[in-house]
């Protein structure tokens, strides 16, 4: 990804560039537009004035099929509200995403689950998991694809510190393997990670 630019007319009054060779920490208070930021990048919303360019292309001109391609193999996303399929089991939720690109082996998936202490819940319906458990599953799911940029919208809001460390390890490991960058949004603390850059909203 070469870069994104937000022009000066945006609500945030800023222009910024996100380059996948870096990692970013998006800092803002509540209601300042963190989820909106993700929504623009993932093509979920286009209600902005100004310009959003994704790989040099105008966000508003990208077709639905092109978005599917981007979401499949370039942009990974962990939504704030997780968005699992409640009527499928934990493992089915992961496999349905993994099958799209055959990104990881079952063994690799299992080891990620083990690392986050979730492998004993594999056959449980995702709708019956606790929020913290769901978040861990959603996190793993977001890594089951090739990507150049990983967007995480408040990824640790329901997870305790011990698991945050483990989760971060997995994320950073994956990003390094894929030579990808990430953008992490959070209400406050950056969880002790060293990010290369900070974006303010």
């Amino acid at each position, binding site marked *: 990804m070469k870069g994104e630019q937000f022009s000066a007319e945006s609500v945030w009054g800023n222009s910024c560039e996100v380059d996948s060779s870096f990692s970013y920490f998006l800092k803002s208070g509540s209601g300042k537009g963190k989820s909106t930021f993700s*929504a623009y990048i*993932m093509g*979920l*919303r286009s209600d902005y004035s100004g310009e959003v360019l994704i790989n040099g292309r105008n966000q508003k001109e990208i077709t*639905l*099929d092109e*978005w*599917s*391609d*981007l*979401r*499949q*193999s370039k942009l990974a*996303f962990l*939504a704030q509200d997780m*968005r*699992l*399929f409640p*009527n*499928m089991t934990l493992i*089915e939720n992961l*496999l*349905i*995403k993994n*099958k*799209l*690109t055959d990104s990881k082996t079952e063994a690799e998936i299992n080891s990620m689950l083990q690392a986050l202490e979730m492998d004993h819940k594999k056959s449980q319906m995702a709708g019956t998991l606790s929020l913290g458990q769901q978040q861990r599953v959603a996190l793993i799911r977001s890594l089951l*694809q090739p990507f150049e940029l990983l967007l995480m919208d408040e990824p640790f809001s329901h997870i305790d510190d011990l698991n945050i460390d483990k989760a971060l390890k997995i994320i950073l490991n994956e990003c390094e393997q894929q030579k990808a960058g990430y953008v992490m949004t959070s209400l406050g603390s950056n969880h002790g990670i060293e990010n290369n850059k900070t974006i303010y909203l």
Partner: protein
Amino acid sequence: MINKAIQRTQKPLILFLSMAGAVIGMSLLMIVTQVYTNLNLVKQGDSGAINEQFLVIKKEISVMNTMGASSSSFSAEEVEDIIAQKFVLDYAPFVTGRNFEVFAEMGLETGQKGSSLGFIESLPDKFIDVDPKDWTWNEQQEFIPIIMPTSFLDMYNFGLAESINSPKISKDMAGLLSIKIRIKGNDLQGLYYGRVTAFSDRINSALVPLDFLSYANNKYGSGDQDEPSKIIIATANNKDPNIAKYLEENGYETNNEQLRGTIIERLIQPLLTFTGMLCVIIIIMTILIFILYGEILIIKSKYDIHVLSLLGFKWKAISKVFNQFFLKVYGVITLISLVIFFIVKMLVDNVIKENLVFDNLPIISWQTILAMMLFLAMFISINIFSTRKQIKKIAKAK
């Protein structure tokens, strides 16, 4: 796997009811179409031994000829005028027996004998569409071949047979019967045997080979050949409007009224048309219900469709899953409709066969297949189109 993501959002009962509606619509459509085409076949009739494009013409019976004021036969001038018409390709008068009596006797199943005074007529061979070797007669021959009007069979089956509780006779069975024919005239009597070789619903009296009639006229008959009261013409196209015009202008008529087709047209066809319209209404309603069901199904899966799109699934792949489900449903509907159709068809065909003595009913006519295909095509295409539209919309939105 998308199937699972799309959840078990269906209520089986509602799906079942929608399908039931579609089955009713479809099978009703097929049945009505098939009955309509069957009756059309019966209506066109089985001209049998007389070719389609021959017309039998006679004069309208009016007060004038009953009172003797005008003739009910064709004069030489009238005949010349008819022959002169452009639509007449060929012509022949019906030849009748001259002044002798004919008694026909038939043995019935119950042992009774039915006999009646009848008359026989003949036409030149070129107007008869029977295998020539079946339509000869000479004195050494055992049987006289006869072409019987279908109305005689109908009359027997619906009149006599019913009243004496005798079984009905089919056309094939009639061909096996032997008819005793007694001819009286010129103080002579003769006994002959006849067999029905063929049927036609274009005539209303029994026909015998010209050879036999000439022989009978010579032996038993007397007097000159009268002016014909019935003639037959060959046309290029019976439906030529010029023909109807000419007939009407001159007070002539063909024997259409005796054709059983008219009965069908007047009584049954209106009923069918009404049922057909009812059918169309039912079909429209079932299509509506089905489409609504499909839309509800998709709306209930809105969250899942959106998440799938977010994960990177293409909207076409998602809509394919729904459409495959609908196609399966249509497959089941078609199968059940076909079963119902064939069962009902069997019943209706039996009614037609028994009551109208018509045998050549097809298993399924192309019109019915066409109706079925059109119904399905319309149904499926509306459904698929609205499904894709809906899913694309959902996949796009937040």
